[in-house]
């Protein structure tokens, strides 16, 4: 309070800088405190424990015939499982990387060439592409076609044409036996 009683002193630096210092540190602590108080509320909107707990699925592959596709659900999203024929595998493997907007070899996208496993969500805005059922359009490259905004995917699920920026995502999975996988 001595500083305040002496106007000369407070105008001259020492009192002033001391006050500024206190002002700044108090202000900074307020910001840190407010951020700390807000974070739990923001984080509460992130996936909760029960949502995270549903994050793996086992699939029996034995009933799937060659050339057949099935769709299963993993984390609320469709997962496409396609048992590819020799011709489809050959096309996917022989495509030059230069033709791909998101270059990736077919080899990098499968554990076993016969089984192509993809998250069935278009990387543009999240629609489910067509091509799983017989009679549905498979697009210009024999894979999948997203009807929402016209993205074409090839027989390795790679983007070939349209607004989607990336290939269909390959979910993490392991072969438990020759005929069953665990996704997630």
């Amino acid at each position, binding site marked *: 309070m001595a500083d305040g009683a002496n106007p000369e002193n407070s105008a001259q630096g020492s009192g002033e800088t001391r006050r500024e210092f206190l002002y700044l540190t108090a202000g900074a602590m307020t910001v840190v405190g407010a951020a700390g108080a807000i974070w739990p509320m923001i984080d509460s*909107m*992130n*996936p909760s424990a029960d*949502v995270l707990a549903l994050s793996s699925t086992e699939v029996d592959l034995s009933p799937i015939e060659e050339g057949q596709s099935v*769709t299963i659900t993993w984390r609320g999203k469709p997962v496409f499982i396609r048992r590819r024929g020799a011709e489809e595998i050959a096309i996917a493997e022989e495509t030059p990387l230069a033709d791909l907007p998101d270059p990736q070899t077919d080899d990098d996208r499968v554990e076993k060439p016969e089984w192509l496993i993809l998250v069935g969500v278009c990387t543009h805005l999240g629609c489910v592409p067509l091509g799983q059922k017989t009679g549905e359009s498979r697009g210009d490259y024999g894979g999948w076609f997203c009807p929402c*905004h*016209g993205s074409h995917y090839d027989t390795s699920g790679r983007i070939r044409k349209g*607004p989607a*920026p990336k290939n269909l995502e390959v979910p993490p999975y392991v072969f438990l036996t020759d005929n069953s996988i665990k996704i997630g």
Partner: protein
Amino acid sequence: MSFKTNNKVVQWVEDRLPLISMGHHTLYEYPMPKNLNYLWNFGSLAGFALVTMIVTGIILAMQYTPHVDMAFNSVERIMRDVNNGWLIRYIHMNMASFFFIAVYIHIMRGLYYGSYKAPRELLWQLGVVIFLLMMATAFMGYVLPWGQMSFWGATVITNLFSAIPVVGESIVTWLWGGFSVDNPTLNRFFALHYLLPFIIVAVVVLHIVALHTVTSNNPLGIDMKGPQDSLTFQPYYTIKDLFGLGVFLILFAGFLFWAPNYMGHPDNYIPANPLSTPAHIVPEWYFLPFYAILRAVPDKLGGVLAMFGAIAVLFVLPWLDRSKIRSCKFRPVARVFFWIFLLNGLFLGYLGGKPAEGWYVVASQIATAYYFFHFLILLPVILPMIERPRELPSSIHEAVLKS
């Protein structure tokens, strides 16, 4: 003629809380330009629509269940079993569309008569904020019935944020509260759909405070210079607003009772199915021009930026249009381009409802380019060079007497 009273109770309240004199000032003696045409009705019509949406919405919320297993059926229960539920829901559905009709006309009125120009820049920007909040509210409301269009509309729109570099995916997961649009998403959308209208009310209050500070623009775009240029709000504009409301409600009743689903999509009467996207997803009609802009750009981030940019450009419009003359009545060139802009906007809306293939894609690219050309090149660069405005009348009073 400020507020005076002989009633002692009124005076007692007035000395402590001047509500009555504030009401008297804003709804009774408030001076309005005396040459307003019917395009000036749409602000109060939008206000009426907002109140209707809040009242019907609160009643609907008493019957609705925000859970993925029950939402669709709870809406069907409202339609079939709840007393007058069909009426209240159809009013809510159709008034949403009529709210946008009123607001779009209100915006186009502002564009034609230069209502965004000094000193009305903040008034205009608050209006753009209201427009954005309305779009967010309408989008989340459309998700609540949990039909196919609800689900896939929500999926597509929330995925827009995944276009943000680096943090996009985390933001989308956070918005969803999971790894896809699911129960947590529906719950929070319901909470926000209930909250946002009240925020809109707050911004509308600011919009009106700003309006009453700068006063209403008018078809001539010149300022009121004295009492001979104005009329009091009551009875002249209260009655005109009420008459307009009557016409508005006749049209509204036409849709409500004879074609309540005309502006909706049949697909939304199919319960949401996360494994099957409808062949042709389209948003509600009032989003179509912006949806066309989104799809016109063949790049994900670019499309999202163009769509948000289409609204962001409205924020800076007061500084893009450099003409000192407000009303297009006195701007022979700007007037022509206004109508081209309006037709281009309607064309974008048409294209937004069509599949993204063939000539539609090229056409929406051209129309999108024109949209931005209008704001970014035509108004600030070309018009100041080629346009010679006509002479303004010296006062509203004089112009009114002449006609």
